[in-house]
């Protein structure tokens, strides 16, 4: 397929791989974190680890929207659907995230809650228009990539005077999470980041400059295709070898330094930064998430239905928190692949194909048999 196959070419991948093998200095260990679940998925889906030398290690980051959603946030959505009788719309992966009382949105649906899977915020708006006598709530999750479409929906709802539509806003911010990872006391040792692809098309490459300038960590923004990832790894190896810490952009076909200014302006018009937001794995992180501005409060489901966020601790055996911080690998969790599988996820990292545990289980677990 044009514009896709070019970035999945096996021969080119081999060339890049041989460059990485040649240039990675044997006495060094290169610990590189791919922040995004999209990269985690590409690495696992295409078996890229097989192309890398042993001393170039990929550490999976927290950039998977459903993985970082704490149990309390899913509980909130379930309460809305069950106790307030709303039509709860959300993206597919969110349906399977484990919540309290052995529930998930999917199980709540089976028990009679009106939960609907949608592909776009426009579907949620459409549902609201078609059900004027019902309240429709969109569970809005995701990093900066999914925020602009939510902003569009809220703006449209305001313009059209749609009164039965609101959002449960769990939109989060990438740079804040990267700060949190680097700030963890005794945290993960990192030599560089493969920077986000789609997120960066919106926010640009500029917000990553502090990671290079202040933390001395190289960042290479990369697309989600396998060749993008390989090229970014090579660029990171070169930065480490040269003793450089810069923000480089491999994904120049889509990312500029300034990003999508129109989308940024729209998001700023509708949303403001929350003082603090609890992440799964990273805990409470200041200035790391968004909420609706006061002038759009009518569309804020938390206010409209008075459902407060209540912190719920993770399952004790689940290592999602350490995995999301890059401190543990999925296979180091005691319940990986036994109690916790994609069919019966205990932790959120086993839910989405972008989650580190699900990716390793689905694509890489043959490595555990050797």
């Amino acid at each position, binding site marked *: *397929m044009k514009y*896709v196959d070019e970035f*999945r*070419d*096996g021969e080119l*991948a*081999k060339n890049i*791989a041989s460059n990485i093998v040649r240039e990675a200095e044997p006495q060094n260990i290169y610990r590189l974190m791919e922040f995004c679940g999209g990269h985690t998925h590409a690495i*696992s*889906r*295409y*078996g*890229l*680890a*097989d*192309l890398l030398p042993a001393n170039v290690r990929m550490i999976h980051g927290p950039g998977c929207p459903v993985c970082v959603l704490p149990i309390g946030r899913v509980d909130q959505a379930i309460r809305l659907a069950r106790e307030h009788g709303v039509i709860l719309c959300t993206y597919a992966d969110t349906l*399977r995230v484990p919540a309290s009382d052995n529930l998930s949105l999917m199980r709540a649906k089976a028990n009679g809650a009106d939960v609907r899977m949608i*592909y776009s915020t426009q579907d949620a708006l459409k549902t609201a228009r078609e059900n004027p006598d019902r309240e429709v709530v969109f569970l809005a999750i995701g990093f900066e990539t999914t925020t602009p479409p939510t902003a569009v929906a809220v703006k449209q709802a305001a313009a059209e005077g749609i009164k039965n539509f609101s959002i449960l806003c769990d939109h989060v911010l990438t740079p804040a999470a990267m700060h949190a990872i680097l700030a963890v006391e005794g945290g993960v040792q990192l030599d560089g980041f493969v920077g986000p692809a789609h997120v960066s098309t919106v926010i640009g490459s500029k917000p990553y400059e502090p990671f290079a300038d202040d933390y001395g960590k190289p960042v290479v923004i990369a697309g989600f295709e*396998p060749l993008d990832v390989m090229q970014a790894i090579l660029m990171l190896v070169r930065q480490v070898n040269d003793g450089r810490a810069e923000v480089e952009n491999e994904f120049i076909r889509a990312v500029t330094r300034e990003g999508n200014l129109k989308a940024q302006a729209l998001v700023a018009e509708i949303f403001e930064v929350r003082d603090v937001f609890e992440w799964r794995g990273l805990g409470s992180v200041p200035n790391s998430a968004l909420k609706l501005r006061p002038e759009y409060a009518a569309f804020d489901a938390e206010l409209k239905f008075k459902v407060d966020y209540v912190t719920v601790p993770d399952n004790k055996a689940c290592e999602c928190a350490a995995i999301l911080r890059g401190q543990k690998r999925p296979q180091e969790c005691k319940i990986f692949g036994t109690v916790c*599988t*994609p*069919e019966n996820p205990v932790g959120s990292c086993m839910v989405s194909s972008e989650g580190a545990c*699900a990716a390793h*289980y*689905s*694509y*890489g*677990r*043959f490595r555990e*048999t050797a």
Partner: protein
Amino acid sequence: MSKVKPNYARSLDLKNGRVDMSHGSGGRAMAQLISELFAAEFDNEYLAQGNDGAVLPSANGRLVVAIDSHVVSPLFFAGGDIGCLSVHGTINDVAVMGAKPLYLAASFILEEGFPLADLKRIVESMAKASREAGVPIVTGDTKVVERGKGDGVFITTTGVGFAREDIILSGDLAQPGDKILLSGTIGDHGMAILSQREGLTFSAPIVSDTAALHGLIATMLNSGAKLHVLRDPTRGGLATTLNEIAKQSGVGMMLHESAIAVNQPVEAACEFLGLDPLYVANEGKLIAICAQEDAENLLAVMRAHPLAREASIIGEVMEDTHGFVQMTTRLGGRRVVDWLAGEQLPRIC
């Protein structure tokens, strides 16, 4: 003389009429629906017996029976509809057991209010598919459920066929060293359904591959190749079907991504929706697992048939106590091709 016509019944309004509860009540309205629509379209000597069941001639070989329910939404899609799908699906289930499909039985669950014109289209499509396949629908049943209790129409078909005594195909017969063949592109049916449901349009429309495979299978069985397993990768797609076989046979598999063909619009739609064509349903494709030495010959036989022009050898069966289906990727890496987790696409067949 009286003008009353004592035996007159106004014919069904197949243009503007709708299914009502009386069509399932066992009374005159039901008899009329059966005679004017089902019997008229499916017309064959066994159905014409008009009894509760069909009495069929005796035949030699081992009897194979398969049943399949069809709840696809939308009922009409590019490349087919629930009618022909319900014929093809069951014929294929009988045929992949190595049997020659001979007869079908069909059960309809109709929802009150369903337009008779749509029912007619569906029944015509079934009749056409059955005639083309040479497999008559010899008995049937109709029930009507109240509005809101069904979704237009559900069709369950049962197929009966006979297999030669010397043909033994089973999911537990894959052996290390065997070759895995696939009859063509994957994902066409599932993406035809989904793209229509989601209103996605592409410059080249995605057309379902729904087809009866018994003709292709007959040529494969006659080729002399030592076939061990035949299966049609429907729900859950190629990946799920191969995992089922690996589990049943207690073996592993190594696939080669570059050998698995995907039509470009299907690939584009999957890319767009974040789906993997390996897990998307097919309704006119088959997987064949055969002895290594027969693979090339079998491949040539398949490619000579119009329904398997793009057949290819996609991998090998290996010894593996874990039963992993693995794949060498286009990039030269290796990965597991796992069972489908959860539900990818509901109601595709």
